Each structure stands twice: as structure tokens, then as C-alpha cells.
């Protein structure tokens, strides 16, 4: 097992060294000349509009919360997947129950409109006002 993680470590180190080396070589070779254009964020050749640091839509936060829960669910799937063949049908049924319980949560946020984007929410709230 140590050896497997030694591979990970080597990838990690090579990845860091690769970036550092490239930046260093580039730093040594480049001519350093500063013009105003160089301070503009690069957006595929377009002039950027407004500030980079915009306020994100708070809706992403709920999506991230939902993601986190199902992230944890996926973590449980890995040990299950490793021993699935050994245990057989019993393991399958147990995992179906596990996921079925969490699907209730997915159904809940779906029905309540938390997965919708802004426009559909606004039209949804208008409908409820009419009612």
C-alpha cells in the first residue's frame, strides 16, 4: 500500500516541480516590459467588462450543499464496490436501501425547486402569488 501512495507522491512532486521549473525558466528567458494591457485579465482577446470579483449568485451555494451530501454518498460506494462480488445480492439490496433513502432528499429539493435556475423560480413565485 505504501508503494501505491509513493506513486501518488511522485506524481505530486513531479507536478509541482514541473510548474515551478517552467515558471523559473520563463522568468529567466523573458524580457520584462510592462504595459497597461498586461494587467488586464485575459478573456480570449476580448476586453473584460466590469470587475473580476463579482458577487456570485447565492443559488450556487444551495447546489454546493446538495453536492456535498451526494459527495459523501459516493464515498460510501467505493468500499461497497470493492466487496460487491464477494457478498453478492445482500450487498446490492443494502446499497439500494441506502441510496433510496437519499433519493428522497433529491426528490425533495427537486420538487421544491432548489435545482431550478432563477427565471423558473421567479415565474414560480409569481404563480404562487396569483393563487
Amino acid at each position, binding site marked *: 500500500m505504501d508503494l501505491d501512495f509513493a506513486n501518488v507522491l511522485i506524481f505530486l512532486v513531479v507536478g509541482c516541480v514541473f510548474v515551478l521549473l517552467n515558471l523559473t525558466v520563463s522568468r529567466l528567458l523573458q524580457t520584462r516590459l510592462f504595459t497597461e494591457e498586461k494587467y488586464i485579465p485575459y478573456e480570449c482577446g476580448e476586453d473584460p467588462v466590469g470587475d473580476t470579483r463579482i458577487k*456570485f449568485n447565492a443559488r450556487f451555494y444551495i447546489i454546493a450543499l446538495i*453536492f456535498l451530501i451526494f*459527495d459523501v454518498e459516493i464515498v460510501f460506494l467505493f468500499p*461497497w464496490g470493492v466487496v460487491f462480488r464477494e457478498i453478492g445480492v445482500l450487498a446490492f439490496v*443494502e446499497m439500494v436501501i*441506502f441510496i433510496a433513502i*437519499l433519493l428522497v432528499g433529491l426528490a425533495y429539493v427537486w420538487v421544491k425547486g432548489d435545482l431550478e435556475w432563477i427565471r423558473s*423560480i421567479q415565474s414560480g413565485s409569481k404563480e404562487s402569488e396569483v393563487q
Partner: protein
Amino acid sequence: MELKPLVFYVFALLTIGSAVIVVTVRNIVHAAFSLMVTLFSIAGLYVFLQADFLAATQVIVYVGGILVLILFGVMMTSGRLDMKLKMERGQLFWGGLVTILIFALLLGVIRRTPWNVQEELGTVEGTTAQIGKAILQSEFLLPFEVASVILLIALIGAVLISRKEVREDE
């Protein structure tokens, strides 16, 4: 193998160093990214404890999930990434006091625990299969299914609380 302790100390140093940066740096985004290094190095320390599954979980859940949530929180609640954090003198005192007390407590627990020490560490297989058998075949089956219910409660609770504020925000 002298390389192994060296790697361990690098990870330990990274953990503590980046954690210190998290609490001292003034830029909140820098603090969040420094936290990423901390959480990553802790995953490295788990590997040294032969807990490979826990290490992977640490990366998936904490680095991949919770840190993203923290960054989202920073970006959306303040709306200003260039917000500067200030540390006041009282905070340093009380924070330091609590830290020392917790450290003393942990040290006491570490020294009193009868560790199951072995001279030679045999080859350790991956723990994922063991965990899989434990949660599917043994007495941990019920806690495993209950974990699903707890996740469901967390999901509905978190969405319920944040939804109200998000919709008021729009």
C-alpha cells in the same frame, strides 16, 4: 528506509505551516486556499497511519467538497473578496489560551492511551475492502443505513435554512 520519516516531516510541517497561515493571513481568499494545503497534508498524514480509504475520503469530501463550499460562502456572503481580516489583541490571548489547553488535553490523552505497539509493521493491505465488509456484513450495517438517514436530514435541513435567505437575497 530513511525517506519515509522525511516525507512524514514534510507533510507535518506543511500541515502546521499552512494552518498557521490560515489563521494569520489577512486576505480571506488566501486563507481559504491555505486551508486547502492543510486539508491535503492531513490526507498525507492519514496515509502514514495506514488509513488509505480515509485519506481518499479526506481529499474527496474536504478538499473537493467542503473547501468549495467555504469558497462559495466567501464569494457570496461578503461579495467582496478583498475584505481584510483584522486580528485583535484579545483574540490572540484567548485563542492562544484555548489552543494551549486543547493541546495539553490531547497530549494527556496521547500519553495515557495504551497504544498497541508492534516492533515490525507487516505489509498492510488496503483498508477499503475491510471497511466494505464491515459496513455490509457486520454489526455496522445498521449504522451504515442510519448514516443515510442522517445525510438525508442534513440535506433537507441545510437546504431549508439556506433557501429562505437565498430567495430573500434575489
